[in-house]
């Protein structure tokens, strides 16, 4: 596939620009229409039950507040490992996602649960810090036990056309990650156009991202279906060209079971069923988990539960 063939060998800004601007364009209206069409998929009964459990297992249960405390983080970890104390058939979530200074706390709280810790890093969310600070941020989080690092790209550099800077930062952070998986946050709400989302996706993939992630959750719009669609197309095309699979993580604005299932439908129909597992698809969320649990109860018991029956953490 010529458009998505591996990027040129020499990594210069000129070469990156030629590669990224040689990608096919995205027609905004067409991309929205496709996402809208897939949003009308009706997922009922057994398919819905399956989708809810899958979605739970993909949740990166997240707290990224200035007001986060060790107590808050420990409570979240307890929820992550055992989302519904009343129903032990509920799967555990994909990971817990916290700020770097909370990694040690989270790792301690999750020991033995099988739930990993993801840490945002690189001066999240703005990313406005010198590279050495970003790398130190990353190394410290990994040293404290983070299995996954969610970095932000330099949107300013991207928008000014300095693709090499974006690329080299990702490469450097990837190196600093060591064994930890790297999720690269594009902050699509600041990139604005789908053409930019496509280019940033391929740039991050080329620089070594294990996952591409939509948003920090601090900027709206965030993980809208068309944005996720364009990113899923990028990982699909990268796979077609190279055989390698990169994961996708929408984050921000996914609050209801319906939202989450729509994301899964996108994954299924755009990237394909291979991406329907937590190794390749995560959903960054906080309040979503309780809605998934409530819908799960509704399906198993036939009655609508109330929010007071689910832990608020």
């Amino acid at each position: 596939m010529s458009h998505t063939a591996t990027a040129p060998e020499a990594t210069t800004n000129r070469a990156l620009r030629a590669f990224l601007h040689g990608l096919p364009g995205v027609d905004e209206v067409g991309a929205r229409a496709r996402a809208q069409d897939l949003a009308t998929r009706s997922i009922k009964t057994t398919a819905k039950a399956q989708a809810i459990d899958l979605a739970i297992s993909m949740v990166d249960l997240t707290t990224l507040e200035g007001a986060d405390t060790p107590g808050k983080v420990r409570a979240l970890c307890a929820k992550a490992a055992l989302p519904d104390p009343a129903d032990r058939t509920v799967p555990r979530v994909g990971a817990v996602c916290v700020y770097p200074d909370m990694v040690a706390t989270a790792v301690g709280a999750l020991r033995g649960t099988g739930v990993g810790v993801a840490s945002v890093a690189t001066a999240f969310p703005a990313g406005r810090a010198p590279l050495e600070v970003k790398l130190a941020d990353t190394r410290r989080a990994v040293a404290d036990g983070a299995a996954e690092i969610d970095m932000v790209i330099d949107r300013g550099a991207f928008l000014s056309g300095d693709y090499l800077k974006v690329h080299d930062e990702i490469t450097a952070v990837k190196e600093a990650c060591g064994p930890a998986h790297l999720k690269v946050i594009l902050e699509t709400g600041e990139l604005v156009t789908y053409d930019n989302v496509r280019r940033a996706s391929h740039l991050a993939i080329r620089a070594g991202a294990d996952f591409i992630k939509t948003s920090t959750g601090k900027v709206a719009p965030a993980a809208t279906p068309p944005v996720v669609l364009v990113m899923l197309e990028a990982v699909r095309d990268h796979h077609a060209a190279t055989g390698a699979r990169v994961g996708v993580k929408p984050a921000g604005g996914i609050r209801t079971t319906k939202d989450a299932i729509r994301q899964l439908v996108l994954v299924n129909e755009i990237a394909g069923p291979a991406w329907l597992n937590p190794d390749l698809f995560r959903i960054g969320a906080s309040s979503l988990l309780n809605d998934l649990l409530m819908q799960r109860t509704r399906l198993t018991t036939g009655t609508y539960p109330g929010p007071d029956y689910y832990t608020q953490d």
Partner: protein
Amino acid sequence: MAERRKGNAGKNPGKGAAEPAPVPGRLAVRKTYKLYLGGAFPRSESGRSYPVTSAKGDHLANASLASRKDAREAVVAARKAFGGWSARTAYNRGQILYRVAEVLEGRREQFAAQAVAAQGLSREAASRVVSAAVDRWVYYAGWTDKVAQVLGGANPVSGPYYNHSAPEPTGVVAVFAPQDAPLLGLTSVVAPVIATGNTAVVVTSEHAPLAAVDLAEVLATSDLPGGVVNLLTGRAGELGPHLAAHADVNALDLTGAGDLATGFEETAATTLTRVVRPGPESGGGEDAWLDPDPGTSRMTPFLETKTVWHPIGV
């Protein structure tokens, strides 16, 4: 030849309609009236001609009697000219039509004399008809770059799309010119066809074809590209069935087809050729065409509406 009617031939020879008054001692040079095909003036490939007489029955000239093959050649010429003519800017088409008016104005006397002789009009009536014909070209010259704005425009669709409709010429139009209005009637049916970017194959008035050939000389000297208008003098009854059935003819103007119109319309149905039926002007002579503002009604039948959609996004 069978087409040559006996009796009138030879009577009053030399009184061709637009022929200058004889100068003593000088033999006038008469005009050979030919077809107008692809910008040239050939005789009918059939070699046939027929006598044209004045309103009083005097012989005026011999006109070429166009054949089926001439009609076929005319369609080929019109099709060939269509791409270029329809691609001209509307402004340029207007300039050329206005040039036709200018050249016609310069030949007023010739056309008026022709109308007096061929149709038996008074000098005054003939002058009025010629003036109206000149003005008709001016009228349609002005329409060329307005008709798209009047008939087209943006459509406010319910969605993120730019949507725009514009008229486009339908293609090759076979025009059966009015039998009883050989100059103003002819102008009135031909000008709107070409103003809108179509090309025309015109079957002229059978018994009064000379004004059409004179007009062809005007067209040929007005920067109108060859093939945009092709004039066949002869019989609608002979040429019409072929033109009506011709798959490369996009529309028929049956104004001058008289009783033949229904049959032609039936034939045209086979290729879904657009049809304009004879209208209220039929049978009214040149006077029926005097309305100085015929509007868009003779243009819209030869226009297709093209609607283009495009998404609006970043």
